[in-house]
């Protein structure tokens, strides 16, 4: 959708577009049917260096900013591909980069940059804690030079397609800390050795092809050297990484919205009913135009959040709002696209229903719209905490 590219990172977008052209709709349709992982697509992105753009050059990455990563992911979505299979490889490493020891950075980041190591699983959510992260129950008990982990995580995406997992676990029981967000620590779990040794992964089949899992820990051992930063301060380490995640997923939503609008426009111009293209009806063209305008507004919000992030400014509010507005825009564009296509929108060969299912996720993940509203109400507007 070159007509309304933002002018940012045009050459990157152009190259990503060429790469995506090698993975046409048919490729994604087959994967969707089998709920299979897009291994070839992810390999191509890795080899082209797109998944290492946030890793500094001294650790083997290209050291571009979050806006470059956003341009990459947005373009992937706008071209009809799906970056959800690997977007976390871009940003989960940020916690190690910002809070890990020099030894950890040297050990992991260069291999993450080449793709030799995949760090794209993030064990946070639990069946009983949901968004209320501080009430998580998974516990890591220190035992000499290792930690023994027991507990369970859910909605851990790509756990089967990742070598490492970033794990959030309690190291001090909740009733023994003054602040409930204290006593939580972050670990790097090498799933290659843990699998079968206390670690069990169970895939969850969902309405779209997303490779999400539940993960069980039964006396799983983690070397003490895999603790990131200081014990008990992990909650803060995780929070600082969430802004990047939200900005990037917002960019994906903008890309989705562009795909839906392009697809709607193309169909509305071609499809003839009552002797004229259906795009000539206000009832068809106005919703498409409205969704397009909503996408452009969200896109500006994403750019603003990315700009603040790159300038090292606080961007919690902007990243959250960008994600909500972009997710709303993509969902609106998706709904309009399905409606514009009429019955054909439901046919798999048009890809609309698949993208529709895929983009619906972002009303819920990585953070639900309600929690963003709660954040804005409380932290931006100064209203009383509502939950």
């Amino acid at each position, binding site marked *: 959708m070159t007509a309304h590219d933002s002018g940012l990172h045009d050459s990157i977008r152009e190259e990503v577009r060429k790469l995506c052209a090698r993975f046409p709709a048919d490729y994604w349709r087959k994967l969707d049917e089998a709920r299979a992982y897009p291994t070839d697509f992810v390999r191509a992105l890795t080899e082209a260096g797109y998944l290492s753009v946030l890793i500094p050059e001294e650790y083997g990455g290209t050291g571009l900013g979050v806006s470059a990563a956003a341009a990459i992911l947005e373009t992937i979505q706008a071209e009809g591909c799906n970056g959800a299979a690997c977007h976390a490889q871009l940003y989960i490493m940020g916690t190690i980069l910002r809070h890990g020891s020099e030894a950890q950075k040297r050990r992991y980041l260069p291999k993450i940059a080449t793709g030799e190591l995949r760090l794209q699983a993030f064990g946070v959510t639990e069946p009983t804690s949901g968004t209320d992260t501080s009430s998580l129950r998974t516990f890591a008990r220190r035992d000499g030079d290792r930690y023994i982990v027991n507990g369970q995580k859910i909605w851990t995406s790509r756990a089967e397609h990742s070598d490492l997992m970033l794990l959030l676990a309690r190291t001090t029981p909740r009733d023994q800390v003054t602040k409930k967000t204290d006593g939580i620590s972050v670990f790097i779990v090498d799933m290659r050795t843990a699998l079968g040794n206390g670690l069990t992964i169970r895939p969850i089949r969902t309405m779209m092809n997303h490779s999400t899992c539940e993960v069980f820990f039964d006396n799983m051992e983690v070397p003490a050297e895999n603790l990131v930063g200081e014990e008990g301060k992990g909650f803060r380490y995780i929070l600082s990484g969430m802004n990047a995640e939200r900005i990037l997923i917002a960019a994906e939503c903008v890309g989705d919205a562009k795909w839906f609008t392009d697809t709607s426009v193309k169909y509305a111009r071609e499809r003839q009913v009552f002797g004229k293209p259906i795009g000539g*009806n*206000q*009832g068809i063209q*106005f919703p498409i135009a409205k969704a397009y305008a909503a996408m452009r507004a969200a896109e500006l919000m994403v750019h603003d959040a990315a700009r603040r992030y790159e300038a090292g400014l606080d961007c919690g509010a902007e990243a959250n709002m960008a994600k909500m507005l972009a997710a709303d825009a993509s969902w609106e564009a998706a709904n309009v696209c399905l409606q514009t296509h009429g019955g054909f929108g439901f046919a798999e060969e048009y890809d609309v229903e698949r993208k529709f299912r895929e983009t619906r996720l972002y009303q819920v993940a990585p953070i639900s719209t309600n929690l963003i509203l709660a954040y804005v109400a409380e932290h931006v507007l100064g209203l009383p905490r509502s939950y």
Partner: protein
Amino acid sequence: MTITAERLEGARMIRESAAGIADRGDVGRTRKLRFSETGFDRQILKEMCDLGWLGLRLPESDGGSGLGMVEMCALAEELGAAIVPEPLIPAALAVRVLAEPERTAALEGRLVVLPAFQEQAADPDAAPATSVQQGRISGRKLFVPSPRGADAFVVTSREGSFLVRSDAPGLVIEAVTMQDGSHSGTLVFNDAPAEKLPGRLEDGLDDACLATAAYLLGLADAVLERTVAYLKVRKQFGAVIGTFQALQHRCVDLKLQAVLARVSVEDAARIADTNVGIDERRAAVSRAKARASDAALLVARQAVQLHGGIGFTDECDIGLYLRKAMVLAPAFGGSAFHRARFAALTFGDSAEASPAPARTA
């Protein structure tokens, strides 16, 4: 009171007879009465009395017609369609508790008696704090419609309903002008002489509320009718604007809301005329008033928008409907109040105590 073909025919005849006074095609009379001393025409109110409208719900033994809410709503709908300014619905509420000789005087249009019951801004149902001692009443009443046009008021108190003359010593009327050119008053009673009445005004509140919902329904239908007629003649880009799908679809959405309000009002009127429990009856009234208030505001606002620039001028009649809807939507409780009351009556104590925000366009 069962609904028979005979009664439906009666309701139809009431609608027809209403057309003489309530002309939905010409709101010039309403326009002229705006911002006048009383805000309505006492002679027209008397004509309404002569047609038997004031006593429509009163038993025949009390000088009324003994009809039900189906008939009352049919009438109120016609009044709303012509946005007539006379306070027939409040006056019909008051007349139910009057004693002789005031009842006959009121039914003949010689005496205008209006109700004063509300003391809390957000809750028309709250029990009154106003009290009466040795025939003297003290208290404060809000939102009394058109008090400058009243000869007397029926006032609720802890000791029951009382009649207070508008010129009684110890009564101060503070009137404010409303959006629609009528006025509303805060009545302050300070040991004002009061006569005890046999009935309780509160028992008629739900009927008056439902009649107001019917008035708002009539308003919504009429303003949409006018708007659709305008879309069929107004030309832009060489086409009547009614050919634009965006406007057609918007009118359809408005029609849907008006129809939903209609079925709620008609259903509530049938329930009110049936021998059902008080909670079921009140829940139906709340449902109808919530829908009618929202629908009237929505349709009237959109009607202004659909008229474009001319709709924003005072000389265009379309604004009269919006202003009337703004004044009557909260009367006898607005949509947020009635949604909360409906929830409490339908779902019991588990329902949320505070009213939800009103849904408007």
